């Protein structure tokens, strides 16, 4: 095992752990700001460090500090303290583990050896996900039960019933998908989606499985306990459901677990149906072949994006009322300066690459970076869909939830399997 091997292992594991965690911060911020904008409010806009609010991200920091320093209450009526404490860990860890098998770039060939770009380079792929994600609900059930609280038990029961109902359509949707891709390995699936259908349509899962994608997304929403399927939490009816007795960091673990799960299932949806890390029409080989022109395009595009982003900051990062010595003007100036220094930095890196390192290993790293960027962007957008749905759709009633699961999604997914198999058999 060479030093490069070790570095690559560490890098991949770091990516698999740190990216979901840092996405928690981004997602919480996105949820708040998104919710606010969907509802014509402004969202967190007060918290600041020396006047810098980072678009509301500082609020997350404040919340984190609050949660860490809050009193960690274990109510006296709780008999099974071990399970009570185990439950949030279970929720969080299972959510995090799911991400380990998701590829975030194509297989990387560096220094003569190839690296599968997953935190755990295994080929069981989707099976791992199915195994782990079903385990996550144990945490919720355990939390509800060990809370020794009627609301908690109700929340836990709801979560259990919901997961049973929705894992079936989810699995069946996957069956037809597997039939299409012919593999359970997620990296291979991603590579498959780099092809073109009829020579011009990217062969993404969403094109091949239009019904399957709907079933899978709905089931994934249910699996992550997000609105409109957040009956386990149901704050308006069962207060907060399974985590009603939790406080401080134990609550924060549930909270973070929820967002990690949201990120992971977004990543999985992207991997399975939205071309994973693939940039449309630019498969890995194409990218490698045209590395220089792509870099030049990037160098041209960056200042343009930077300019418009700067304009947007200038326009929106100001006080919309009369205010003397508006601190936001200074804030805006600093942000724009930072933005342009970032642009310049990237330009310099790109230039350096073009002049000194083009061709060979550097090309591959560049492509990997581009693919990682694409993957994160797609996942980010999918997360936005989560937020978007949450602030648009009301929660289902419990019988509606079960009805949709068993009476609609299950037959549809079976139908989807038949159609898919028929098409595959007919056209090979």
């Amino acid at each position, binding site marked *: 095992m060479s030093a490069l091997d070790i570095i690559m292992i560490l890098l991949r594991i770091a990516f698999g752990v740190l990216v979901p965690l840092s996405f928690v911060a981004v997602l919480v911020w996105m949820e708040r700001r*998104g919710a*606010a*904008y*969907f*509802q*014509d*409010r*402004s969202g967190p806009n007060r918290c600041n460090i020396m006047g810098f609010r980072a678009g509301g991200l500082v609020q997350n920091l404040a919340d984190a500090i609050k949660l860490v320093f809050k009193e960690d209450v274990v109510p006296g009526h709780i008999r099974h303290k071990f399970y009570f404490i185990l439950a949030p860990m279970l929720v969080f860890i299972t959510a995090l583990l799911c991400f380990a098998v998701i590829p975030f770039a194509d297989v990387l060939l560096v220094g003569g050896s190839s690296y599968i770009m997953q935190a755990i380079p295994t080929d069981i792929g989707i099976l791992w996900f199915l195994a782990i994600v079903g385990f996550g609900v144990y945490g919720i059930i355990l939390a509800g039960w060990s809370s020794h609280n009627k609301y908690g038990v109700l929340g836990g029961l709801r979560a259990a019933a919901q997961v049973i109902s929705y894992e079936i359509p989810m699995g069946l949707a996957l069956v037809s998908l597997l039939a299409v891709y012919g593999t359970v390995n997620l990296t291979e699936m991603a590579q498959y989606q780099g092809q073109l259908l009829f020579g011009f349509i990217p062969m993404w899962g969403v094109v091949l499985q239009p019904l399957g994608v*709907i079933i899978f997304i709905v089931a994934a929403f249910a699996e992550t306990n997000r609105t409109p399927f957040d009956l386990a939490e149901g704050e308006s009816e069962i207060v907060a459901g399974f985590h009603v007795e939790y406080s401080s960091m134990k609550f924060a673990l549930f909270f973070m677990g929820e967002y990690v799960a949201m990120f992971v299932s977004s990543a999985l949806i992207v991997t399975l149906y939205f071309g994973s890390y693939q940039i449309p029409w630019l498969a890995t080989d194409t990218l490698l072949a045209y590395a220089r022109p792509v870099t030049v395009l990037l160098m041209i595009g960056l200042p343009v994006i930077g300019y418009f982003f700067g304009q*947007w900051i200038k*326009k*929106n990062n100001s*006080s*919309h*009322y009369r*205010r003397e010595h508006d601190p936001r003007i200074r804030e805006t100036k600093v942000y724009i300066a930072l933005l342009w220094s970032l642009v310049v930095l990237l330009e310099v890196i790109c230039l350096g690459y073009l002049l000194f390192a083009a061709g060979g290993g550097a090309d591959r790293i560049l492509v990997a970076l581009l693919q990682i960027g694409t993957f994160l962007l797609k996942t980010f957008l999918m997360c936005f869909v989560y937020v*978007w*749905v949450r*602030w*648009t*759709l009301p929660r289902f009633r419990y019988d509606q939830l079960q009805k949709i699961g068993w009476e609609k999604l299950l037959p549809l997914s079976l139908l989807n399997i038949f159609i898919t198999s028929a098409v595959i058999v007919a056209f090979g």
Partner: protein
Amino acid sequence: MGAKVRVVERKGRTFLEQLYLLEVFKGMAVTLGHFFRNLLDNSRLYVRHYPEVRPEISPRWRGRHRLTRHEDGTVKCVACFMCQTNCPSNCIIIEAGERFDGRSEKMPLRFDIDLLECIYCGYCVEACPMDAIRMDTGIFSVTSDNRESMVLGLEEMLRTPGAFDEDSYQKGVR
């Protein structure tokens, strides 16, 4: 009951509506429209930037209570307990005593309103036969870090002036 019964046709019975998915997308389009409108220009948010931009209080608005005085400065309140009797949250506590200023025979020695329990319904103002208690101070934010100071006493209520002139108050009340 002479109310007319109007049979409303139940909506949402066509196939496309029953499919639900299409309606979901319609709804999501609406919210996304709001999102982008606000994202691209956040000056269009329907939000008052509260501590800096204060709300405009109308004379009809029920704020913190105050007790009024006659022109000669004597307390209008005669401690009739009408406000206490009428108070749905039972937050007014009065102690009455003899009065010798010629205005009346009775006056409040103690007049406490527990603002933590008050629901600002304004029934006390409506019940008052003397126009002695009003909620026209325009004070809308009553905060404290202890319970005791949330109990408003006689002195404090007499001290607080009304925020509106008599004409606009009377117009507002009517």
